[in-house]
């Protein structure tokens, strides 16, 4: 990886990590929302089994997508080799 000596380089790198953080926040917020709906259903006794059933499928999908995204961001941004 090139040394980030200049201010623009550091800005670019900070923004790139910002995108990675944004991805985590976005997907994390969706997972939190689904969890909130399960909690609400559980608290109100409003057929929580339906919420849990759907979430069992949905949350792992979101986590897998997040995993792939982070794998790419980490893999590219921490690469030290040149072409």
């Amino acid at each position: 990886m090139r040394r980030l000596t200049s201010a623009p380089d550091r800005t670019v790198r900070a923004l790139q990590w910002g995108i990675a953080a944004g991805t985590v926040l976005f997907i994390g917020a969706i997972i939190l929302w689904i969890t909130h709906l399960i909690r609400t259903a559980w608290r109100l006794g409003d057929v929580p089994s339906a919420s849990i059933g759907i979430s069992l499928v949905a949350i792992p999908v979101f986590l897998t997508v997040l995993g792939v995204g982070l794998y790419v961001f980490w893999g590219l941004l921490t690469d030290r080799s040149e072409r």
Partner: protein
Amino acid sequence: MADPADTRDAALLAPIERTGRGFYWTVGLLSLLILWGAVAYWTQFDEGLGVTGLHQPVSWGFYVTNFVFFIGISHAGTLISAILRLSKAEWRRPITRMAEVITVMVLFIGAGQILVDLGRPDRMMNIIRYGRYQSPLLWDATSISAYLTASMIYLYIPMIPDIAILRDRVRKRKLLYSVLAMGWTGSEHQQKVLNRAIAIMAVLVIPIAVSVHTVVSFVFSMTLQPMWRSTIFGPYFVVGAIFSGIAALIVAMLVFRKAYGLHGYLKPIHFRYLGQLLLVMSLLWFYFTFAEYLTAYYGNEPEEMHVFWAKFSGPFWPFFWGMAVTNFVIPVLCLVRLGRHTIGKVLTASLSVTVGMWLERFIIVVPTLSNPRLPFGEGIYFPTWVEWGELAGSFALFALFFVLFTKLFPVISIWEIREGREVGLKEVEERLLTYLPETAEPRHAEPERGW
């Protein structure tokens, strides 16, 4: 992967580096349509849903039709792109990017239709705070969120090497391209990461895409409404989605081929292959439609037959028969022989299918609500200028998003084209040899026993 100094694909960078007068005319025209949509929406927001043709018993009209239609078109992309990538179809290279862009754009437009249909968009907060997972509408919200997230990542990851080319070659928007290129140098490690991620996403998006449209169909088939409660609605919707998706992709390819002079990349052979796929999907669509209507007819349940005849010979007959002609008759006539005038025939069929699939969504949504099972009394739906404005605005917004995308990023994947030239040919030859039996026969082969 891609060498930034390679100038062979300058035609793909030209739309980004130079902007012609046609671009401004296009944006101006689309903006006018979007303005019409915006005025229509403001009127609806200000005065309520009463300004639309929506009423009891028809509470879903153009907006829900558009929602199902746009979500369907989104299948173009990811599904076609992912299947072609996984099957290593070499002709995919100039197609995948456009397909992936369509997916992301129309998902935004499709999801937006629900906000418009709500009448009061602030009530979206109620879904976030108090949503109940017993409702198929919330299954929809969840599955579309998953599909949109996966599609955005699936669009972005294969774009990274191209963005690095833009970073190194284009003088404009340096910061944007530098940030989005994620430090891409084309090293072996980075290529490995990218290829692995693309492969995982290609596998992941196929079941997500199929499930999304199945879940969209559940919004209808989980009810007890006549001609909605059907076990084949899931696959019927998926087939329709892929069908309309291919048609939309072909139209987009032809528009950008003409506008940006991409004849060297999007060749008649690409349209022939996609035309053949469209023909197969047309036949499949007809099969599902036939099965769906035959089952209803044979069952002869009074409420179902009421809707059935409303479509066949009642007030909805022009839409029903229009759908049959545009989705089956015209495509089959155009695509059954693609020897000559391939592009003209494929374009005619695709435009026809695009109209036909919108009609199909309309003919599913509205006639059932017009003739409900419960004794509400029948009703006919007449859209007002507000819904027409929203319809025009939505299509224009999709087109504008796409046009703006092509001004920022290559509409055809540059690195995949170069990879095809550099390593694709050799790979295909090697792969072909692995498919075929060994050519060297053993001299004294033993006769096979038994069979």
